[in-house]
């Protein structure tokens, strides 16, 4: 178990891609403190920013990192990690778990934009809110999330799951605009409400909205009514749901499930069935 305590309030953005279980494995507290991070335009040692503490536990197979303090300026925590755990007691900055392949990250606060960007495996659980571009790739890239799972207990911002190719995203709060933009495959479950344009340009995959959505894009066609939807192995959500498919502008075959009971204003679609 490795504990990191923030020594002060951070004013400048910090790029700390070194904070991963893979990097910390087999290192002493001093060695971990020697790792380099960029604070603004200055290169610093991790020990200058954090108090590093290592507690030996016998039954621990993979490293566990716990971080305390306000990390909202710290970016790239857990980038490219493949194993172990990171537990963040507080908020965290952008690019949390970018390109991660395995292991688990838990955030007991909010995560800023691009959490789980381009991730390929592993689990991210955010107990607060997630920012925009959840699991979305870097600007301009079309290589979205390729596997793994993201669970957000609060709300998520815009463009959650953009360019997604595989994996699962579960948002228990509300989601912003353009959920599942250009997604190809995978599942996005939004338990709360969803803002407009869900599934824009999607070519495959599944978006399930359990709350209110004001409208469905005109490029989606109604296919039928479903009693329940499977989110993942062992998790089924009871409906009924309207099933739409699209986005036709992209010759897509994505599925959009919208709760019937919460969206009575969409009942005019029923006459097309």
């Amino acid at each position, binding site marked *: 178990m490795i504990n990191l305590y923030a020594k002060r309030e951070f004013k400048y953005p910090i790029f700390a891609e070194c904070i991963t279980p893979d990097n910390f494995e087999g290192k002493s507290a001093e060695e971990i403190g020697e790792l380099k991070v960029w604070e603004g335009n200055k290169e610093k040692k991790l020990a200058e920013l954090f108090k590093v503490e290592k507690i030996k536990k016998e039954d621990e197979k993979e490293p566990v990192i716990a971080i305390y303090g306000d990390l909202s300026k710290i970016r790239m925590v857990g980038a490219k990690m493949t194993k172990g755990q990171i537990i963040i007691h507080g908020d965290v900055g952008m690019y949390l778990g970018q390109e991660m392949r395995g292991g688990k990250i838990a955030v007991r606060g909010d995560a800023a934009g691009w959490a789980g960007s381009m991730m390929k495996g592993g689990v991210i659980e955010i107990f607060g809110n997630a920012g925009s571009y959840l699991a979305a*790739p*870097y*600007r*301009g*890239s*079309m*290589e979205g999330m390729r596997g793994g799972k993201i669970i957000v207990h609060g709300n998520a911002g815009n463009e959650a799951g953009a360019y997604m190719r595989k994996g699962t995203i579960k948002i228990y709060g509300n989601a912003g605009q353009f959920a599942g933009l250009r997604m190809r495959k995978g599942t996005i479950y939004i338990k709360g409400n969803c803002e407009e344009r869900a599934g824009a340009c999607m070519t495959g995959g599944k978006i399930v909205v359990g709350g209110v959505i004001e409208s469905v894009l005109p490029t989606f066609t109604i296919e039928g009514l479903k009693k329940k939807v499977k989110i993942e192995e062992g998790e089924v959500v009871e409906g009924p749901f309207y099933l739409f498919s699209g986005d036709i502008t992209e010759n897509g075959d994505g599925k959009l499930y919208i709760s019937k009971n919460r969206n009575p204003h969409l009942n005019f679609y029923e006459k097309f069935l």
Partner: protein
Amino acid sequence: MKLEELKEKRLVEAINMELLIKNGFVYDPINEINCEKMDIAVRDGKIVESVNERKAKIIDASGMIVMPGGVDIHCHIAGSEVNTGRLLRPEDHFRDFERKTAITRSGVGYSIPSTFTTGYRYARMGYTCIMNPSMPPLEAKHTHEELSDTPMVDKATYPLLGDWWFVLEYLKENQIEECAKHVAWMISSTKGYAIKIVNPGGLEAWGFGRNVRSLDDQVPYFNITPRDILRGLCKVNKLLNLPHTIHVHTNNLGIPGNYATTLETMKCVEDLAQEGKPAIHITHCQFSAFKGEDWKTMESGAAEIAKYVNAHEHVTLDMGQVVFTDTTTMTADGPFQYTLYELSGNKWVNHDVETETSAGIVPFHYRRKSYVHAIQWSIGLELALLIKDPWKIYLTTDHPNGAPFTTYPRIIAWLMSRKAREETLKKINKRARRKSLLTTIERELDFYEIAIMTRAGQARALRLKNKGHLGIGADADIAIYKFNPEQVDPSKNYNIVRRAFENAAYTIKNGDIVAKDGEITKHIMGKTIWLDVQVSDPWKITEEMKAKFREYWTVEYENYPVSEHYLAISNPITIKAEV
């Protein structure tokens, strides 16, 4: 010390700089030096007979290869198109960036590096002179601004003239001499170096949403054919005595079955060639050597093209090699880029440069397991290996279309080692492997041939007198690579070859050591080479022409030409034309 004194001291130091490169294995194909152990002496940025050994700085190159600095005949490194590509692809940059050091500036890379990074990366590989093809004349100022910001190398650029309205109008009336005068004015006022022709006629047709499919298709509204344009500009090139030939990107590029068009293009100027002199350069020939009816039946047409080139003296080619990587395609060939966009479904930029040309940009990933991409990879190498004379084919990737220029060392390894080719062949698409001619080709190039393909041949094709060789009076642009050809066999140790060419042991530019073991040791600015074409009766701008400018262009005539002070370091070459 005062600033003025300091400057003077530096100047004196630079002038008195003497350098002696001792005991290297020298490859200098233009002077027919093949792996001879000799010393190279440098004074005042030029290669000289000898220097005072006690005063000179001595580089011990024993056990190393000494070659002239690399010359690249075709790489898109500057201009509005390249810059739009940079804007289009932030994801290309974020994995590949260079932090600033005490000497170099920061920058980003991979397929479309920023200007400074472009210069540094070329210098690290031992390149000292690079040519930027395809500059729309309207974007000449932008191109020269970026070229002025590309350090470490000398550079030049080719204006696109194949679909320029005035040229088309002159050729339609068959006024070759008038056309030549106009082209002379264009080259001098855009500070260009050669005539670049891209998909002749096709770009004009693209303005109407069409393309041309053969050399004898009509160009809409001009009543001429691609053949007329090629022959016309080839004659113009000859009348103007331009150092390089016409630099042609063929019609139907990137379309299966286009090798026939390429052969036709080479044939159409056969009678215009002077004895033993090239008359046409077919650029990135790999993209123009596809056989077959469609993508499924596509095959290599390299054998046919190689057969023709082996039998004729008037053609030079460059490879346009594909390497399996993520890159950005960008050409002035708008219709071809549209095809690519439809194939890949990737993001796409399409642009019509007023009356001059078009352009398109599409990011592209060449994959080993794709049949078409694997065949393309094979075609490039087949061309280089089947064409017997290395003076006729040069190593390029059409940066960044086939791959970024930083992949040159890998291509050199493939050319020098059959084992390296077989290693890659094992990993590519199975059907492509069966169809590839590479399995039957045993030829392995040696360093002498590589020196021709990467520097001497290109310098000769461009007729750059002081580049590409190490004779007395040549520019002291020298590359030294850590490879001992006497002790190590490049065919077996291709990885050592690759590493050696990736980071030159020394890169010397104008007698200065600018890079050492992959580190930039000095930031210098290169010259911009351009042609000052002098005709007996210069083309005059008439009121009618000015009116046309007002009518057709967004730029007034007065703002159109690039004046010499616009170039950071101008290096005009005066050419006496025959008209």
